[in-house]
């Protein structure tokens, strides 16, 4: 189920204007994704770690999330060095590990971790509702935002409905096994869940229509930047400039 373990806190980063955090995380991610030189990528990873530290998040929980993504990256390490064309570093039987393949994997690992960490530090440190409101204030498309917010609102309801169905199956003696009957039961449960979700969607739409819904959503939240926000934005701009110069001017 959706949990927001990082959303609340009292660190400086938690208190920043959410619009600023979204803008910075986005700009930073683009720059990291487009960078190719190792000094820039290493600097980015270090900065991300530093910012995670400043957000004072539970290290264990952060590590678990990061591990999840790195599991996928591990597969790249198993495949890419062997299949990517280039100068061989050494041979493993009939296969050869290429220099280019290893470098590519290293870049991908650095980039994805830096981006993931910055999003944990800056975007997951606000409740989803605040994220929606801030996106609205940044003039992102309303439909997108309300898709996000309605999903967030009903994912819990649908989960409850699923738990109810599972409980109903359990009290009638259902125990998951690897039999065709188990698979059939799960298929029924899923089917039932879709039916209920669509009936629910219709009732929610009715409720919206009853309250005069005409396709428009409104946002009542206001954000006003404080002095700290201005100081932080100066800091963020220098981070971005620093990364840019590491990548495009060859200082190091």
């Amino acid at each position, binding site marked *: 189920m959706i949990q927001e373990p990082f959303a609340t806190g009292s660190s400086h980063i938690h208190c920043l204007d959410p619009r600023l955090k979204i803008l910075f995380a986005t700009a930073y991610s683009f720059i990291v994704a487009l960078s190719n030189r190792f000094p820039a990528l290493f600097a980015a990873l270090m900065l991300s770690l530093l910012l995670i530290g400043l957000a004072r998040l539970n290290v264990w929980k952060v590590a678990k999330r990061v591990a999840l993504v790195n599991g996928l990256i591990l597969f790249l390490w198993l495949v890419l060095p062997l299949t990517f064309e280039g100068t061989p570093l050494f041979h493993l039987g009939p296969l050869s590990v290429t220099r280019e393949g290893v470098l590519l994997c290293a870049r991908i690992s650095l980039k994805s971790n830096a981006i993931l960490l910055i999003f944990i530090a800056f975007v997951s440190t606000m409740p989803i*509702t605040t994220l*929606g409101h801030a996106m609205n204030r940044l003039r992102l498309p309303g439909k997108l935002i309300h898709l996000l917010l*309605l999903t967030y609102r009903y994912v819990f*309801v649908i989960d409850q409905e699923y738990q109810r169905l599972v409980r109903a199956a359990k009290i009638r003696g259902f125990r998951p096994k690897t039999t065709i009957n188990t698979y059939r039961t799960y298929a029924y449960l899923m089917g039932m869940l879709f039916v209920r979700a669509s009936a629910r969607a219709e009732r929610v739409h*009715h409720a919206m229509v009853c309250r005069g819904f005409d396709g428009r959503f409104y*946002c*009542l939240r206001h954000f006003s930047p404080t002095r700290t926000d201005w100081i932080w934005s100066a800091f963020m701009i220098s981070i971005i400039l620093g990364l840019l110069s590491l990548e495009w001017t060859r200082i190091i």
Partner: protein
Amino acid sequence: MDKNNLIINLEEISFIYPGGAPVLNQLGLQLHRGERLGLVGPNGSGKTTLFQIIMGLLRPSSGRIEILGRTVAREKDFREVRKRIGLLFQDADDQLFSPTVLEDVAFGPLNLGKSKDEAREISMRTLEMLGLAGFEDRITHNLSGGEKKLLSLATVLAMEPEALLLDEPSNGLDDNTKEKLIEVLSGLDLSYILITHEADFLAKTVDRICRMENGKILTDIESYPHYHLHEHARGRYPHEHH
């Protein structure tokens, strides 16, 4: 009563769900201004369906609907109706679709064309009236069942309707919250139709009761709420009732 005082006037309404048995059969129902009407009937007798027909969410296969003195038939007519009659849904999770409490209450007023400040003002006032002051920034799905129910009522009342359709408002409420609801309902100067399966709640909230059965309102056994003495295990000893 004279016709000018009619808020809702249904004549010979019939309705069938596609592929189902007839739910409403030549049904007639009147709600007058200032009247507080209770609607009872067995599960599946079509009470919720009837409310949806009044709000124009379902269209009857035949019959005439007159709301506040005007015949309504098309979507455009019902849009007016929805501004003046509020429907409280049987399931609060259907009614509360916004992520935060304040946004949910303000949704109706904003759609009625109120400014953001006015909408906020109205919402805070309504929340206060229902004892939900301080809830405005709470996340909707984290509220308890009773709080959700009261909040649903707040979202309806914030539109300042002339009449209410309440679908099992007391369902799942504890005695204190029920008392609170009764207090709120009797403090409102609004006409309403209320569906409930609870006799005690009914006795405290309505002046007249209609029974629905076989797709019709049974006018001949139209009744008036009253209390009954009851029997139970500890009856012999002095005890308190809520």
